[in-house]
């Protein structure tokens, strides 16, 4: 580590500061008071080993600690503790915490050691994979706020988290599944120990007593495997039976039940053959496959989980803003629209709102897929769930709870997961027919073998039942769709309807709306023509100064274009539909419609201005009593990534079209700049609808990308629709996919993900089909024993899941 970077966090040390902490016998430089305080806390507690063992640098603690510490006292209230603290005994409590800032394994050690030394703490465990901590303490000797303060003192942030959430359920599911696998696996091994000698022993090698004893021992060990481990199969089959349909579990339950009962009978009567080894092995392979499948699935759905977990539990409400600014820590559920909250750097914004004060940037990566922080100044809208990065923000609450954008996104995603995609419905129908046919075939096989060789009837029938179970067939599609939905969400494309992935992949035509979709949808200052004594910057600043309180889109565009401070003007008068007038250094200035500005000085526009007016764009003038000062040309700028997306989609062989209500000239200009051949300008919502309909009559699968209220009908008409995340609410709820990031490049990426998903589904289906076609005759002819059947079936399901997992994007870590 160089001399110039902070020993604690690795950030460069400014020359002006001098914080020194002695670590490992040498003074080390720190970049800020926060780092120095943290490092001192670590060393003073004798935990300096952390610096030797760590293999990643921690986050910088940034903010000075006292502000954080004040709010911690709130966590001691019984009301707040309800959701995340459990009482273990009369005085012992256990809290579930989520810890932010963990970067390497040494952090775990540091936190556990440090927390364990706090008064009253009985135990502390931190889970490295999930960053969750469980802390147990004695209520009489310590307080939770002290524990949280201790964690904060060494540079981490601990938040309580509600254990009653699905994560806990998933953990329970994982544990009980693992236990079932273990029971089956251990039963299998032990039963095999008794089975192998009987296979190896020659005629008369083993006494009847020993053989019978081994059978009984096998029976005792198979009982828990069939009764407990295989219980889910029996339950599933019973449920199917009750609903008068046949599902995956029916053949499995039949096979297991038949083989087990026959073996029990053989044991009781000391006759025939026993199949305990095959039964246990079959159950073990099946459960093992299901366990791996489940862990894969749980990992894939984590995106939705992450989204719903974004909202913090508490917020700092500012009473009597802006006069007194009394801070009070309140639960987010108690916030109402109109309240003002303070969001410190590093905190998550708890509500949708508008920035009142402060300049900062927020990270909306999880919501929109946009990885770069978004700059926020007063007046900017912030989304609940994004993280404030730079400096404190005062935010006025606009939406809370269920009406926030985050809640809407989670709701849309849930809707998608509840609907059963057509593809999956189809696969299920095929599988149900398949099972009916399979049961019939199994019955025929049993009858046939009864005449050929009655001794082999049972296990051949069981093998046929098991080996052809269409698990892989019915897994092939849903697993891919689940993983694809997660991958798309990470790319900023939210799937809100179940069929969207499939239809997007099949699309032949992409139809784009222009305004707000291919362009930003709001005017921007493109050109300034000066006609008077001032230069471009002065004119822009003057116009921005006059428009400084205006909500008009052109006024906003002017303010955005003006750099630095704008001059102060007096006596601003707004004439709606015309423009604004103000006094500046003794002269009257007007900015607005050309004719209205001209009334002020009665002078014609010079010759040089005509070129500017010819383009068809909006032009606004600035003038005073003496004459014209400047002309401003505004236009809707094309999104910079649009051209790349267009060439990308064209390269994939898609037909592109542009539909817009705008004038022919403007539309053609945009289409030409991007390379779209097909243009329909001056289109009404009806004619857009008709155009898409005519494409569909020619057999096209149309994907429509739009943003506005006027696009809603055509979005509904197209087979698959994509709405811009920044577009109207109506368009968003109509659409099958929402492009949260507003980044068109993500759309192209999403299209490729969808295409790959469809390809993987086809692979999976082909594999499942081939497997069944090969395995069925082999089993019917008696070449497959039940345990081989179990292995084959589990392996085919597992292969399908692993193949689907290829769609998952690589984790960054």
């Amino acid at each position, binding site marked *: 580590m160089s001399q110039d970077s902070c020993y604690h966090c690795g950030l460069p040390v400014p020359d002006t500061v001098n914080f020194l902490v002695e670590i490992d016998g040498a003074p080390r430089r720190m970049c800020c008071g926060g780092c120095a305080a943290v490092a001192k806390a670590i060393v003073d507690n004798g935990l300096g080993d952390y610096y030797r063992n760590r293999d990643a640098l921690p986050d910088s603690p940034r903010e000075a600690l006292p502000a954080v510490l004040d709010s911690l006292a709130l966590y001691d209230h019984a009301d707040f503790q309800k959701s995340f603290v459990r009482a273990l005994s009369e005085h012992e409590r256990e809290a579930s915490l989520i810890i932010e800032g963990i970067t390497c394994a040494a952090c*775990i050690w540091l936190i556990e050691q440090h927390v364990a030394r706090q008064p009253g703490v009985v135990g502390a465990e931190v889970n490295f994979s*999930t960053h969750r901590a469980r802390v147990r303490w004695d209520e009489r000797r310590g307080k939770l706020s002290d524990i949280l303060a201790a964690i904060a003192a060494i540079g981490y942030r601990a938040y309580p988290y509600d254990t009653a959430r699905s994560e806990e359920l998933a953990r329970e599911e994982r544990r009980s599944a693992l236990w079932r696998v273990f029971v089956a696996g251990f039963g299998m091994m*032990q039963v095999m120990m008794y089975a192998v000698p009987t296979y190896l022993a020659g005629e008369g090698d083993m006494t009847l007593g020993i053989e019978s004893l081994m059978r009984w*021992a096998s029976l005792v060990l198979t009982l828990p495997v069939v009764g407990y481990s295989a219980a889910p199969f029996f339950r599933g089959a019973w449920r199917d039976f009750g609903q008068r349909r046949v599902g995956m579990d029916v053949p499995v339950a039949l096979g297991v039940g038949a083989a087990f009962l026959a073996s029990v009978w053989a044991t009781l009567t000391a006759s025939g053959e026993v199949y305990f080894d095959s039964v246990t092995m079959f159950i073990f392979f099946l459960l093992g496959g299901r366990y791996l499948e489940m862990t894969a699935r749980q990992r894939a759905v984590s995106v939705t989980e992450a989204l719903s977990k974004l909202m913090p539990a508490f917020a700092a409400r500012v009473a009597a803003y802006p006069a007194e600014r009394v801070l009070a820590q309140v639960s987010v559920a108690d916030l109402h629209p109109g309240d003002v909250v303070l969001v410190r750097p590093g905190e998550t914004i708890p509500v949708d709102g508008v920035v009142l004060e402060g300049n900062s940037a927020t990270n909306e990566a999880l919501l929109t897929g946009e990885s770069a922080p978004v700059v926020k100044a007063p007046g900017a809208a912030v989304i609940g769930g994004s993280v404030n990065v730079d400096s404190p923000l005062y935010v006025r609450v606009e939406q809370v709870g269920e009406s926030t954008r985050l809640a809407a996104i989670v709701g849309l995603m849930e809707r998608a997961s509840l609907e059963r995609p057509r593809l999956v419905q189809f696969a299920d129908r095929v599988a149900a027919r398949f099972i009916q046919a399979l049961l019939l075939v199994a019955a025929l096989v049993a009858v046939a073998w009864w005449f050929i060789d009655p001794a082999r009837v049972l296990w051949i029938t069981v093998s046929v039942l098991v080996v052809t179970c269409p698990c892989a067939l019915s897994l092939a599609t849903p697993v891919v769709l689940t993983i694809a939905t997660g991958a798309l969400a990470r790319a900023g494309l939210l799937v809100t309807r179940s069929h969207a992935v499939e239809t997007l992949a099949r699309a032949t035509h992409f139809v784009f709306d222009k305004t707000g979709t291919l362009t930003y949808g709001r005017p921007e200052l493109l050109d300034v023509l000066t006609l008077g004594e001032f230069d471009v910057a002065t004119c822009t600043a003057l116009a921005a100064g006059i428009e400084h309180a205006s909500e008009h889109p052109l006024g906003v565009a002017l303010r955005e274009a003006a750099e630095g401070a704008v001059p102060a003007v007096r006596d601003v008068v707004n004439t709606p539909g015309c423009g604004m007038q103000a006094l500046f250094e003794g002269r009257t200035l007007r900015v607005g419609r050309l004719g209205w500005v001209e009334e002020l000085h009665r002078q014609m526009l010079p010759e040089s201005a005509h070129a500017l007016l010819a383009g068809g764009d909006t032009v606004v003038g600035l003038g005073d009593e003496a004459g014209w000062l400047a002309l401003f040309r505004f236009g809707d700028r094309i999104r910079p990534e649009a051209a790349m997306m267009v060439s990308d989609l064209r390269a994939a062989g898609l037909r592109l079209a542009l539909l817009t209500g705008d004038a022919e000239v403007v539309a053609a200009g945009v289409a030409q700049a991007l390379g779209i051949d097909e243009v329909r300008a001056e289109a009404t919502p009806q004619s857009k609808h008709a155009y898409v309909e005519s494409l569909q009559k020619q057999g096209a699968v149309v994907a429509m990308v739009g943003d506005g209220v006027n696009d809603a009908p055509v979005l509904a008409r197209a087979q698959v629709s994509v709405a811009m995340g920044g577009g109207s609410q109506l368009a968003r709820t109509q659409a099958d996919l929402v492009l949260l990031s507003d980044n068109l490049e993500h759309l192209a990426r999403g299209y490729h993900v969808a295409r790959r998903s469809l390809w993987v589904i086809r692979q999976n289906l082909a594999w499942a089909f081939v497997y069944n076609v090969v395995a069925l005759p082999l089993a019917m002819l008696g070449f497959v024993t039940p345990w081989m059947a179990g292995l084959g079936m589990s392996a085919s399901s597992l292969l399908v899941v692993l193949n689907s997992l290829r769609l998952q994007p690589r984790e960054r870590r």
Partner: protein
Amino acid sequence: MEILYLLIPLSVVLVFFIGIAFWWSLRSGQYDDLEGPGHRVLMDDDKVREKKPGK
């Protein structure tokens, strides 16, 4: 061969004890974090006790 009459029942009993041991390890959360403990064993906290006797 008579010893088998003892060994086979014994093996059955043993299986149940092993099952109980696994059940305990599962319930105590040993399978929840498969990454952390591997790192944790490398952390050396002997020196800490030397520095702070009585703690």
